[in-house]
């Protein structure tokens, strides 16, 4: 399972409140990713990191920020949650193989914004 955990696994919050989701990995991978998954849209990349303090935006980054102060943790923050951010959020890591690279996913966090 590539040693990825996400916390919390479920969260219900109210519009306007800040929310932070945590992704933790145990295998020292350099690349980490945050996706959201919604019906009809599939998996969409929010932000990703290619090293400590090195992050970049994905296709749906508005309203989200990230931080990576150490290799094992990648945090996703919703500064002021909105109902449109109700979704299932997945963290992923990338492994480097001899021939190709591969992404492995965490178990997900289901976020409901009321």
């Amino acid at each position, binding site marked *: 399972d590539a040693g990825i955990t996400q916390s919390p696994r479920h969260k219900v919050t109210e519009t306007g409140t800040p929310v932070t989701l945590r992704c933790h990995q145990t295998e020292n991978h350099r690349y980490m990713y945050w996706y959201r998954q919604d019906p009809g849209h*599939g*998996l969409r*990349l929010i932000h990703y990191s290619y*090293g400590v303090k090195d992050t*970049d935006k994905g296709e749906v980054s508005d309203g989200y920020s990230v931080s990576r102060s150490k290799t094992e943790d990648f945090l996703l923050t919703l500064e002021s949650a909105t109902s449109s951010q109700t979704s299932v959020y997945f963290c992923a890591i990338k492994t480097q193989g001899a021939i190709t*690279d591969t*992404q492995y996913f965490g178990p*997900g966090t289901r976020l409901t914004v009321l």
Partner: protein
Amino acid sequence: TQLLEQSPQFLSIQEGENLTVYCNSSSVFSSLQWYRQEPGEGPVLLVTVVTGGEVKKLKRLTFQFGDARKDSSLHITAAQPGDTGLYLCAGAPNSGGSNYKLTFGKGTLLTVNP
């Protein structure tokens, strides 16, 4: 922007039937990955195909990468209820570097009825 069109979006079949899921693009990918996702869980990697024309078999699942590395297919023989799930294809970029990002199809939701 690279796009991956996955078809069909939904598929409901009887146990024992065969099926094929398609993943098509106008872009060339360095590799293509297939994932399977069950409700409440993260996507789980099934296979990665790297070489144009490559065929990989995983028990009753056969994966093929197109000669031009723009498309792929997943064929399941004698489907079983345990094959039920969301099947996702994802293409890896030709260029590497710090901006490595997968392009995901929207998925095929397969239901195999007993």
